């Protein structure tokens, strides 16, 4: 019963008549939609980055650090001194059912020399399971083995940054590097991993067997000492159980009586990262919500202009009613007009939002991701704004008395 093409034509004509006014009204929606899209792009970009970083440090990770970080009470045992051993790591793997893999780590910074090149980097004494725990593949060569660990072989795996700085274009496999003057042969090259969540270059590293590190490079203050232990839980649901099992086991092994504080700290890295991810999502929502306020203000602008338009066109409404326009003919005419304003503004706003997020990326260096969902969301929302804020003026127009409307000057 409603003639949509004609009504649309009428609406477009009405908007054309007051070009400046229509453009300014649309500007409100353009800014609103643009802001929503750009803000969501910033938020999505940030959380995407965090997700990538979570993936890069490895999933379902637990890290065990020596010493107590809780401040209450007297510190027991070795305090900030190392308290963990390789045997602790072996026991965790054997006795904690929620744990999939364990790698003890004894690390430090050391000078590496190859030929006439030298480079200072983080040297990690560890076991082969570190590659599984950190979801890290080899780009070339082979990993060192349990046998290498048992016999404290002088072999190493190089990170990409180390390779670039020491070898340039030479193939490092089979070459000998000196770590603190001790010769090691290069058996494998790690794949590129990029930055850690803390912004560290994860590729600036060397892996060697933990026993070699203990005996040849860093030494130990007590037998079997390691600095940290990395644990991979079987899956995300097992993280809490693993944490609990590890704490119990280590308290037992370190002979910590009840009511005494731990001489180690168990940290759930994945959980920490997930919290960070969660807070980024909250931030995204918050940014989006703030931006939608401007869309709302744009909607009020539409209502304002539509009310003016209804008053200005009272006589037109009267004429239409006289020749047979029904209540909903009049209402739809004005709703469609408001909708046209908001949807044209919405389309322009999408363009503005996408270019806006590109500009933010370029200027601020943040990664932004414009999701299809955010585009649909913003466009749909602007449509709703048009209908919602167009309805009252349209309703008002439809209630006019045709006799009075026809006489309106």
């Amino acid at each position, binding site marked *: 019963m409603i*003639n949509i093409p004609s009504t649309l034509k009428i609406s477009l*004509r009405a908007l054309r008549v007051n070009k400046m006014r229509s453009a300014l009204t649309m500007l409100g929606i353009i800014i609103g939609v643009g802001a929503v899209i750009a803000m969501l792009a910033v938020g999505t970009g940030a959380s995407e980055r965090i997700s990538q970083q979570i993936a890069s440090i490895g999933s379902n990770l637990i890290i065990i650090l020596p010493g107590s970080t809780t401040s209450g009470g007297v510190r027991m045992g070795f305090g900030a001194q190392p308290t963990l051993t390789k045997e602790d790591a072996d026991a965790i793997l054997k006795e904690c059912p929620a744990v999939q893999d364990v790698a003890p780590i004894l690390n430090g910074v050391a000078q590496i020399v190859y030929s006439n090149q030298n480079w200072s980097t983080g040297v990690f004494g560890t076991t082969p399971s570190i590659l599984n725990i950190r979801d890290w593949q080899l780009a070339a060569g082979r990993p060192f083995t349990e046998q290498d660990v048992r016999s404290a072989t002088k072999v190493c795996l190089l990170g990409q940054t180390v390779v670039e700085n020491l070898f340039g274009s030479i193939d490092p496999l089979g070459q000998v590097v000196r770590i603190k003057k001790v010769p090691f042969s290069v058996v494998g090259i790690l794949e590129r991993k990029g930055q850690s969540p803390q912004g560290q270059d994860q590729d600036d590293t060397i892996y060697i067997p933990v026993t070699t590190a203990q005996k040849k490079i860093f030494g130990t203050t007590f037998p079997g000492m390691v600095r940290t232990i990395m644990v991979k839980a079987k899956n995300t649901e097992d993280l809490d159980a693993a944490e609990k099992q590890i704490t119990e086991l280590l308290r037992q092994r370190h002979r910590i009586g009840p009511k005494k504080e731990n001489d180690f700290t168990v940290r759930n890295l994945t959980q920490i990262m997930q919290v960070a991810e969660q807070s980024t999502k909250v931030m995204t929502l918050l940014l989006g919500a703030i931006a939608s306020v401007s869309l709302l203000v744009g909607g009020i602008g539409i209502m304002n202009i539509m009310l003016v338009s209804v008053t200005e066109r009272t006589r037109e409404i009267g*004429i239409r009613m*006289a*020749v*047979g*326009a029904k*209540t909903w*003919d009049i209402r739809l005419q004005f709703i469609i007009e408001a909708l046209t304003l908001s949807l044209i503004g919405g389309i322009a706003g999408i363009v503005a939002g996408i270019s806006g997020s590109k500009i933010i990326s370029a200027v601020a260096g943040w990664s932004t991701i414009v999701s299809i969902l955010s585009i649909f969301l913003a466009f749909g929302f602007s449509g709703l704004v048009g209908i919602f804020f167009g309805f009252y003026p349209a309703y008002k127009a439809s209630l006019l008395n045709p006799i009075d409307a026809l006489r309106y000057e």
Partner: protein
Amino acid sequence: MALIETKDISKIYELGESAVHALDGVSVKIEQGEFVAIMGPSGSGKSTFMNVIGCLDTPTSGRYLLDGIDVGRLNRDDLASIRNEKIGFVFQMFNLLPRTSALENVELPMLYNNTPYSERKRRALASLKILGLEGREHHHPSQLSGGQQQRVAMARALVNNAPLILADEPTGNLDTKTSIEIMELLVRLNQESHITIVLVTHEPDIAAYSGRIIRFLDGRVISDERNEHDEEKIALSG
């Protein structure tokens, strides 16, 4: 059956304490094909009467039958349909949509009764042709003279083949020469197409074109007579 039949209709406006009887028991019967002029001073109720028979307003009491339909019982949207189907309006102020071509103005009533696009265009063009506006289809009202604008309004009134045209001071804004043209067109429509025409005017010259003159005063009909000089006047002006 009469096209228009009012039975004792009254229209009362409440103005605070007092009530104004804009119409006070008016009973009028107008047959299909008549040309009736409604006369009376301002405040006599002739405009209210026009609004009621034009289905723009409903009487406070009494019955109004338009083409046999009891209009008093209809709601807003039903009244809109009746206006669309049965009544063509011609106003003193022309009341064309500004910035809209003559053609689109004439198409307007057909937008509200689902006439398909091609049919709409065909009928609007035919209607404009009857009123001698060929070649002006795409002119906007501001590009047309008063007489031409009134003819566009008449084309709009005709386009739905309504049996009734209500003309409210149609020559009020026109010079004498153009007024005569418009009145002759109305007479022609009345005679050739048997369209019933009810005309409100306060000018005796204009009323003279009609076949019957109904005079109002204080909300009542004070006289209702055949216009004897009907044929003669047309012959003279023609």
